[in-house]
């Protein structure tokens, strides 16, 4: 474990009944980086974040956040971090301004700074013209931006973001990613969880891939992609699309892995070029026509599929939205 990490985690485990939510996690996060926790729903990402922000007590292991042990000094640890949970959970009856002032009060900011800090954040997050609007009347994107602003009132050095863009439209999600990149420029360390591979690739300096409560690998997106560079990727657009196709393709010599990504069939293999005829013949025998075909440069998604064995389709499934919860 990196002794200089601003977040340091060792042997962290948490079980809920029969389910081992996180299992002996070891990692550290460097100051000023965007560190991503990438994994499918139920992998243990939110449990990890909830332990790191002092909401949950782990069964074993230790976690230091900004030098504070989250088990023994949870209040001190909380003072130095901002948290943006998966749901935009500010107070629906309060205005944007009042929500931020309330956060300033809870985090112990001097009274003379409440309004000024709130206006500064509303300006930064492009919400100043809606400062008197109630939170319940905001769009999802605005709610998300205000929730991030609320996590920054006390100028924390570390920001935890749980699934920051879940449920947002494309434009709002893109805007939010810009906000996160700006935070990094200001020196804020960002720890984010996501099930969106593209988001991790776009934003993160380093990514930890977590599946079933265990970290499979931690590295930069570039290094992870490099690790599958020797693998050839062939993308075929078949018709009709059948869920059974990947299994049948994997039976062919030279095909190490096959997966359906939306309506495309992706084949991975070290010497795929030598198996092209057999692939075509097999598809023909299955009554499948080919609409298009191309070779691909490995992406983080390819690396993820290869390293975890988890189908990329599984990663596209959003968590069910709680009633009255996220906005």
């Amino acid at each position, binding site marked *: 474990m990196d002794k200089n990490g601003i977040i340091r985690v060792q042997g962290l485990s948490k079980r809920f009944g029969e389910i081992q939510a996180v299992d002996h996690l070891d990692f550290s996060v460097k100051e000023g980086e965007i560190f991503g926790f990438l994994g499918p729903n139920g992998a243990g990402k939110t449990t990890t974040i909830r332990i790191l922000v002092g*909401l949950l007590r782990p069964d074993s292991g230790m976690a230091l956040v900004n030098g504070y042990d989250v088990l023994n000094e949870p209040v001190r640890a909380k003072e130095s971090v901002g948290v943006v949970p998966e749901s935009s959970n500010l107070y629906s009856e309060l205005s944007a301004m009042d929500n931020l002032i309330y956060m300033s009060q809870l985090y112990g900011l001097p009274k003379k700074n409440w309004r000024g800090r709130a206006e500064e954040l509303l300006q930064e997050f492009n919400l100043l013209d809606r400062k008197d609007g109630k939170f319940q009347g905001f769009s999802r994107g605005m709610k998300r931006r205000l929730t991030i602003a609320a996590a920054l009132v006390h100028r924390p050095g570390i920001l935890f973001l749980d699934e920051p863009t879940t449920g947002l439209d494309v434009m709002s999600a893109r805007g939010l990613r810009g906000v996160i990149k700006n935070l990094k420029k200001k020196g804020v360390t960002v720890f984010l969880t996501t099930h969106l591979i593209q988001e991790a690739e776009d934003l993160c300096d380093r990514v930890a891939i977590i599946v079933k409560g265990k970290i499979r690998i931690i590295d930069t997106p570039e290094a992870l992609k490099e690790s599958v560079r020797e693998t050839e990727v062939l993308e075929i657009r078949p018709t009709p699309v059948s869920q059974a196709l990947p299994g049948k393709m994997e039976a062919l010599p030279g095909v190490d892995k096959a997966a359906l990504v939306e309506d495309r069939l992706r084949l991975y293999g070290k010497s795929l070029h030598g198996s092209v005829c057999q692939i075509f013949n097999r598809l023909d025998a299955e009554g499948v026509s080919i609409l298009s075909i191309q070779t691909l440069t490995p992406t983080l998604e390819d690396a993820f599929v290869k390293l975890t064995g988890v189908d990329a389709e599984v990663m596209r499934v959003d968590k069910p939205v709680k009633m*009255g919860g996220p906005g």
Partner: protein
Amino acid sequence: MGKGLRQAYYIARKDLRAYYLKPPLISWGLMLPIVFILSFYLKNPQGISEVSPGLVGMTTLFSTTSMAAIVISFEKRIDALERLLMAPIQLRTILFGKGLGAAAFGFAMALIALLLMVFIFGLRVSHPFSLFASLVISCFAFAFLGILISVGVREVFEAMTLSNFFRFPMIFLCGVFYPISSMPIVLQVIGFCLPLTYSVDALRQSLLSHGGMLNRWLDILILSGFSLMLFEIALAIFHKRTQEPN
């Protein structure tokens, strides 16, 4: 003011601003006590003073527990309670702040009921100081009862239903309308296990200067014990609940 007390005050102030107009508060916390008071007045205008301690106690109980149910279970439902858990605030401070808001709401409602009876029905207060003390302590005891009920449930309607499971029997078992001494011994024993009994007893002596089973200051002391016990049980359950999967 210490940091924890200041945080509790901000939590209470926000709750009062945000929730005082919520429908369950208006129906259960305000309308129901007013309906009871008017019903008794219309039935027997001269006898309103005799039942006034019970009516004030009942108003305090219903308004305080209704507010407590809202501030915990509604915020749990919309995940806003987690916002407080993420802030650098002790669990004890969060629950105390929630209780403080509920107690303040209950106190305001009890004051309205009292003023109504003083200025419209001609009620006279015998011991204002002990009246104030018994009202304040009753508000905290009932607020922590409401908090205890709502930390254990997930939805607002569950909190209100469970609250009524405690509140309605208390109306009949705690001397609100009938003296406890006239009840069968088994019901008397149950009555003495409930905080409203001591609240009504203290209020009766403070308002009417007669009646009462225990010294009114002993009633207030017992109510303080109830407040502390209910708060600590609610805190233990709240702590356990925060450790459950989200």
